[in-house]
């Protein structure tokens, strides 16, 4: 909206203000000049004033002209660039859908592509994969674009480096994976971050290769050794998309994995909803670090299942000494059988933490009729007022109680 209409409004406003100023100053200049010619304004002070007025009018005129020219040229350039992008897009789409490009004869080199052509094909590679994507990548590599970007990613100005790394991430050329993994050891955190994103994007489209030296293993080792913020690792793991499962599983199975990385892996597994990894998560359910215990139960809650191996730990965690662990455990308990969860959750209705009471009441309400009946009983006759109020709140949210009945139960007029 702003880009479309804001520029025009800005130009018109600038033109109006500068135009008014220029005309006013021009008028003043003329009157001074006439005065000087007729001998009325002939003192040195008036001469200086005249010079100032004329130079101000000229400066404003130049500025106004510059602004108008700037917008005109920008608009022309944008249109030209858009046309170029459209032409190249058509060309690349034709290449992607029509079949292999004509082979290059030995010894001959394809001409260097203009930047607009590279931008166009990189955008296209974000949209298409499979045979069509492979054709585009082959063409890119044939023109030496991958080597050019790699050279820029290794040296030069920081902005150019980041630009090149981002382009490599979009191009998703498997041959550039190891170069990008090498950049995870770069001194600048922003370069490491961009390289991690780009490498993950490439790995996401590579077929799994079994063996200790496969791309997944190389990615895992590089991430473990790199000094990356947890958020950066999580972003990279999320970008692995359908390839995330094996990588996350391998990381979880590593007994020497750092706690911060393990926390990231647990969070990512939950966020990606990788339900078949619930068993692998169970291993961290009794971790000494409460952050990791909480992350485990949060992940299981997101997956919507609690594996047998984690049940006993979950029941213990509902009574954990750390309140945020109890909150997550109470949430995850909704996915236990009603018979198992009920005795663990009911006492939590009088937990000192509001969050635990809420999680326990919410999970009880999800256990079906028996759970709802327990919450209703608590709303009516629990000796603890906080437990009664929380039970009423949950019943209201679950449409199991009318507002009038809720007022009666809590004694609010």
């Amino acid at each position, binding site marked *: 909206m702003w880009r479309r209409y804001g520029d025009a409004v800005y130009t018109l406003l600038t033109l109006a203000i500068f135009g008014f100023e220029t005309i006013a100053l021009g008028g003043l200049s003329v009157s001074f000049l006439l005065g000087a010619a007729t001998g009325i304004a002939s003192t040195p002070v008036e001469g200086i004033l005249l010079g100032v007025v004329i130079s101000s009018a000229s400066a404003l005129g130049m500025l106004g002209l510059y602004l108008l020219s700037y917008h005109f040229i920008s608009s022309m350039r944008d249109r030209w660039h858009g046309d170029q992008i459209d032409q190249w897009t058509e060309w690349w789409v*034709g290449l992607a*859908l029509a079949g292999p490009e004509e082979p290059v004869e030995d010894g001959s080199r394809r001409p260097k592509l203009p930047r607009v052509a590279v931008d166009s094909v990189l*955008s296209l*590679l974000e*949209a298409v994969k*499979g045979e069509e994507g492979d054709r585009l990548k082959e063409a890119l590599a044939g023109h030496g674009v991958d080597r050019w970007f790699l050279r820029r990613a290794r040296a030069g100005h920081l902005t150019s480096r980041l630009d090149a790394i981002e382009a490599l991430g979009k191009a998703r050329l498997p041959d550039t994976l190891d170069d990008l993994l090498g950049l995870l050891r770069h001194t600048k955190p922003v370069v490491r971050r961009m390289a991690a994103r780009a490498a993950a994007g490439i790995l996401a*489209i590579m077929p799994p290769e079994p063996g200790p030296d496969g791309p997944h293993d190389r990615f895992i080792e590089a991430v473990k050794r790199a000094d990356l913020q947890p958020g950066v690792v999580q972003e990279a793991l*999320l970008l692995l998309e359908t390839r995330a499962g094996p990588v996350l599983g391998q990381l979880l199975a590593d007994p020497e994995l750092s706690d911060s990385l393990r926390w990231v892996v647990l969070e990512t597994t939950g*966020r990606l909803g990788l339900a078949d990894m619930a068993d692998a998560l169970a291993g961290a359910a009794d971790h000494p670090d409460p952050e990791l215990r909480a992350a485990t139960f949060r992940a299981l809650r997101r997956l919507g299942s609690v594996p047998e191996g984690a049940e006993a730990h979950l029941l213990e965690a509902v009574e954990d000494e750390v309140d945020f662990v109890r909150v997550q455990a109470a949430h995850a308990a909704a996915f236990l059988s009603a018979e198992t969860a009920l005795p663990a959750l009911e006492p939590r209705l009088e937990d000192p933490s509001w969050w635990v009471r809420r999680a326990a009441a919410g999970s009880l309400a999800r256990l079906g009729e028996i759970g709802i009946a327990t919450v209703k009983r608590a709303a009516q006759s629990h000796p603890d007022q906080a437990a009664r109020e929380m039970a009423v709140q949950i019943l209201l949210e679950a449409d199991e109680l009318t507002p009038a009945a809720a007022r009666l139960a809590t004694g609010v007029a």
Partner: protein
Amino acid sequence: MLSTPRLTDARILVVDDERVNVVLLERILEQDGYRNVKSVTDPTEAVALYDQFEPDLVLLDLHMPKLDGFGVMKLLEDRISSDTFLPILILTADIRPEIKRRALSAGAKDFVTKPFDRTEVLLRIQNLLETRFLHLRVRIDPVPEGQAT
């Protein structure tokens, strides 16, 4: 008895703010024989084009400026009667389960993740259009009671 329309006669509306994606989808559909494809890169124009074009299928991007895919679906919801099956195929790079759930509850019928595979997109489009035409046929030419199973 009405004849079943050919899938390639189907009207397909593409809504994506990325011109590159629109061109790609148009060419893929053209190459597969679809002749009635219209597209917009400004999502605020999608509803007007929908009213004018009355598509059999909408290919919709989720993350767009001004009006996202959820907003477009919300606007379309008011125009689609409850007994009409208008398939909306979401094309998105966002693979988060909560986004998929949200889109499905907003009216989307299927998903394709970007970058997409040409064959997969075409198959999903074909499946959705077949369902659309079967639905239309049942509405126009209901199965006689005696033949109903």
